[in-house]
């Protein structure tokens, strides 16, 4: 399954990691993809994320953080793009293991990413805490979006 393996680093503009060497070369292996078409798929995505986190050795508390982050990102897909995908991957470098959550859709995209990352801003009448909340609780965070083409949010949590 070589095609599941890739070497790359997520986002250069993320919130940064306090783990030394975290930006050294990484091996990323995609474990699961969950198609998100409706609210019931949110539950499936976060349960698979929790299971993967536990398999990697994350504590109950950390696994709940992973599941909560997935829930927020998957719900954004349902709310804004109608459908998309949650991709769960294991990441390892020389010293650490972690999990990468990618939420990808081909929805309308986000016109103003800075705005969407501000606390209190939401165009769906939500709490506006989804994206900024996820960003502050993960080790690395990246968002790519183009209006009319879709959005890809990547979040990494080290064990």
């Amino acid at each position, binding site marked *: 399954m070589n095609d599941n393996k890739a070497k790359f680093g997520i986002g250069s503009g993320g919130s940064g990691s306090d783990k030394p060497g975290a930006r050294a070369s990484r091996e990323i292996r995609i474990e699961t993809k969950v198609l998100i078409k409706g609210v019931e798929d*949110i539950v499936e995505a976060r349960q698979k994320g929790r299971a993967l986190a536990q398999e990697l050795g994350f504590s109950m508390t950390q696994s*709940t953080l992973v*599941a909560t982050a997935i829930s927020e990102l998957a*719900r954004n897909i349902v709310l804004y793009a109608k459908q998309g995908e949650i991709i769960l991957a294991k990441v390892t470098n020389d010293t650490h293991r972690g999990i990468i959550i990618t939420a990808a859709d081909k929805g309308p995209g986000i016109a103003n990413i800075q705005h969407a990352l501000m606390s209190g801003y939401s165009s769906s009448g939500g709490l506006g805490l989804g994206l900024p909340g996820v960003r502050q609780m993960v080790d690395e965070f990246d968002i790519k979006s183009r209006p009319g083409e879709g959005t890809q949010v990547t979040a990494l949590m080290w064990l």
Partner: protein
Amino acid sequence: MEIPILKQRDYLIASVQSVLTDEDLTNLRDRLVQQVGRFRSQGVILDVTGMDVMDSFAVRTLRDLAHMIRLRGATTVIVGIQPEVAFAMIQLGLRLKDVPTALDLEEGLAYLDRNKGKRTLPNHE
């Protein structure tokens, strides 16, 4: 999956024992708001022990539920928030604000008994 709502004395008790979808939660909210009137209940205890995750949607829905029930003249108390769920809520910046909480069902009942007829919480923001 429909969450059963039990009637005990002047109170309604709903206990979440499994993972909920968004629809299950809004459905529960709507049924509780209706049944408070049907049974002339003074209080509602919502036991969320079984909720695996409390994300922004769940927190907002629980706050709405408590405020709607307040408007119907009864008090809601949320019980059973697990330690790791509480941790994740704080990490995400999610707050239940003025919605009363208690450790478990027993403490929830004690809270409602203490505040019976007081029409106290939740206060206006």
